[in-house]
């Protein structure tokens, strides 16, 4: 198997959520001196972005996304020490949580996966997160972005409460606020004072990259290349297979 074959297989198996195969291919790549950076940027990240794209158009659903993410994480566990040794830095920090009174975390966990997959360092505050906890985490981790998820019409007003708490703590200007969750709309997120609305996990990762780009902290050369490759791939993607 050439390096190109391995990368192609790694990409395909990650898209298809083959956990064991992805781990094996990653190990095989390492054994044959395949560059960890190449595996990350030419196979794994594009694969996860493709999964995100299919999720957005309704071709993939939560199960497919979770299995792909798990495959990706298996590969990252092998690659991470090597990437760290090569000085590969995270794109930025994101603090994320499900708002107070809400115990739904499936969507938020998908955001974590997509954000981590895209190269962010994620601090997950879990479910039922009080405004105080958001404030404390923003102060402690100094993230560029804070994400708030609400699944219920009864809990979505907490987004505004959290943003008010950040203002009061003098932290509002230091972070970009992203909001999302089933009942949340762009209009509602804006009315709460959030900077960005994220309709799903894939959009969250994309938006996070845009935000950091806007802050002058653009992704490095290798990632830029990967993103360009994915965009090219997406532009030739087949039309929506609507149900």
């Amino acid at each position, binding site marked *: 198997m050439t390096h190109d074959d391995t990368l192609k297989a790694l990409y395909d198996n990650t898209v298809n959520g083959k956990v064991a195969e992805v781990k094996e291919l990653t190990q095989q790549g390492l054994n044959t001196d395949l560059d960890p950076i190449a595996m990350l940027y030419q196979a794994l990240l594009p694969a996860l972005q493709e999964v995100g794209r299919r999720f957005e158009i*309704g071709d*993939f*659903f*939560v*199960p*497919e996304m*979770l*299995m792909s993410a798990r495959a990706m994480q298996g590969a990252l566990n092998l690659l991470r020490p090597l990437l760290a040794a090569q000085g590969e830095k995270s794109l930025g920090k994101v603090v994320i949580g499900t*708002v*107070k*009174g*809400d*115990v*739904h975390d*499936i969507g938020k966990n998908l955001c974590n996966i997509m954000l981590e997959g895209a190269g962010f360092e994620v601090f997950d505050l879990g*479910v*039922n997160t009080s405004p105080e906890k958001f404030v404390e985490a923003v102060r402690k981790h100094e993230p560029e972005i804070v994400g708030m998820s609400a699944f*219920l*019409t*009864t*809990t*979505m*007003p*907490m987004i505004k*409460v959290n943003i008010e708490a950040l203002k009061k703590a003098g932290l509002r200007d230091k972070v970009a606020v992203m909001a999302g969750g*089933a*009942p949340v*709309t762009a*209009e*509602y997120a804006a*009315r709460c004072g959030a900077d960005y609305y994220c309709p799903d996990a894939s959009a969250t990762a994309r938006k996070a990259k845009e935000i950091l780009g806007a802050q002058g902290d653009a992704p490095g050369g290798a990632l830029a290349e990967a993103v360009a490759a994915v965009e090219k791939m997406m532009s030739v993607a087949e039309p929506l297979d609507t*149900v």
Partner: protein
Amino acid sequence: MPNTFLERLNSGTVMVSDGATGTNYQKMGLGLGVPPEEWVIDEPHNVLALHRAFVEAGSDIILTCSFGGTRIRMRDSKYAERAPEINFRAAQLARQAASQRDGVLVGGSLGPTGQLCEPYGELTHDAAVSAYAEQAAALTDGGVDFLILETFFALEEAVAAIEGVKRASALPLVVSFSYDQGTRTMMGLRPSQVVAAIAPLGVAAIGANCGKSLDTMEQIVAELSAQRAGIPLWIKPNAGLPRMVGDVAEYDISPEMMAAYATRFVRAGASVVGGCCGSTPAHVAAIAQAVKAVAREDALPTLSLSETSHDLRG
């Protein structure tokens, strides 16, 4: 003793269920982030009042305020340790409200745990089975006529819930999924896949509730009907999607619009119709009126003879 719910379902009588619980409680003052089930203990008069409003509006069936009442989902509630008691009391409150008109039935509501089952999440099959068995036992003891698993989205969880319910209760069981991605559930299930997996497990009715829009619900009803599984259909859509006005979720679908769709659902084969999120007693009243008109039409195929049919309608 014969079960009235089953008898009516199998006789082909169309029944009208109730409307929303959570969104109506919000209008009655349910606090931010407070689970509706806590009202069973804290505000039982409000729970009763909403049940009564639905009975007055014409509901033949009302559902208990126990949707989030599994031990697993109540973990973060101040009443985490009192889950079985809440279910028992919820059943009794609904029973009390149902008694104000003859023949009103009570369905014990059981919703998802909010977690994903293995292999996608941490929740084990056995833990889910025992949580649903506990909830079903408490609702049955509280005096419900049947049980309903509603707003499910994952097959693994529904199968575990059915196993748990059947372990604890002999009452008829309705299983209803939420197709919130349009005509697929969050996990990507189509109605036909749900019927194929659930019908063999022995359920009284299969349903669709909540979801995205009335139009997508109509597509779902068509797909469910096309399965011809010989199982009655239970259809309870949202009054559209919420639009936030201040801190209150407003739903734009009018009672008349809901009623028009309910009529179409009945004509397409639904045995039970009602409303989910955003549906007020006014929505239910409109549905009840419209659905009864359909039943009269069906009984009178010679509608063109308007004079005669008018007399016959009495």
